[in-house]
């Protein structure tokens, strides 16, 4: 993986038209700004998996008509 250090206000450029600006750093959070053509989809990575999960959920929502099984409650932890 390419690793580049940037200070607040500095940026990196990907390809011809995508600029990523480091806007703010506080604690373990960085705020990024993106300058790119509107046709380029930019998403937080966890959202990509959520989108896929939602699409699968919608495709299979009819399966609930099969037999019901009563689950046992468990713990999520933190």
């Amino acid at each position, binding site marked *: 993986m390419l690793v580049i250090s940037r200070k607040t206000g500095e940026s990196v450029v990907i390809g011809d038209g995508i600029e990523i600006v480091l806007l703010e750093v506080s604690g373990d959070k960085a705020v990024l700004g993106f300058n790119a053509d509107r046709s380029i989809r930019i998403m937080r990575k966890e959202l990509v998996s959520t*989108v896929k999960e939602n699409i699968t959920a919608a495709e299979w929502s009819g399966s609930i008509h099969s037999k019901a099984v009563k689950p046992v409650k468990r713990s999520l932890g933190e």
Partner: protein
Amino acid sequence: MLIETQYLGAVEVPQENIISFPDGIYGFEDTKSFALVPRGIRDDSPMFLQAVGDTSPSFVVFEPGEFVNDFNPRVPDSDLRELGVSSAQELVFFVIAVIPPDIRCATANYKSPVAINKETRVGRQVILENKNYPLRFPIFEDALPQPEASGGKDVQPCL
């Protein structure tokens, strides 16, 4: 309000069950209104989160407490603001389930539940800050196919 559903035909749904989603649901951003439609008459029946104005999408949703006993969501401040509340206690949550043909493999998404402001009936899918909350929480842990039990034959593991 009479809602045309994907699986149950036309169902009369009380107005308080109509939830507006200004940003839609991830992957379904154009659907701005959903109805919570009870599946059956039993109290513990799951609900459908059914698009209003179109028969799909329709999601199977459950109250988080249905499968776990310690749901304690930490909602990002930006989502609380969007929902017009100051704490997660003011919200009602539902987890979206994936129910594959082999129901034993069913999972529920505890990482990104749907949060609803009870007062305004505005909803939003949120990504919780709870690090261990899984995208795919197996609903039926005890019922999962166990390849060992049958010598590895005739049992498809969950995907």
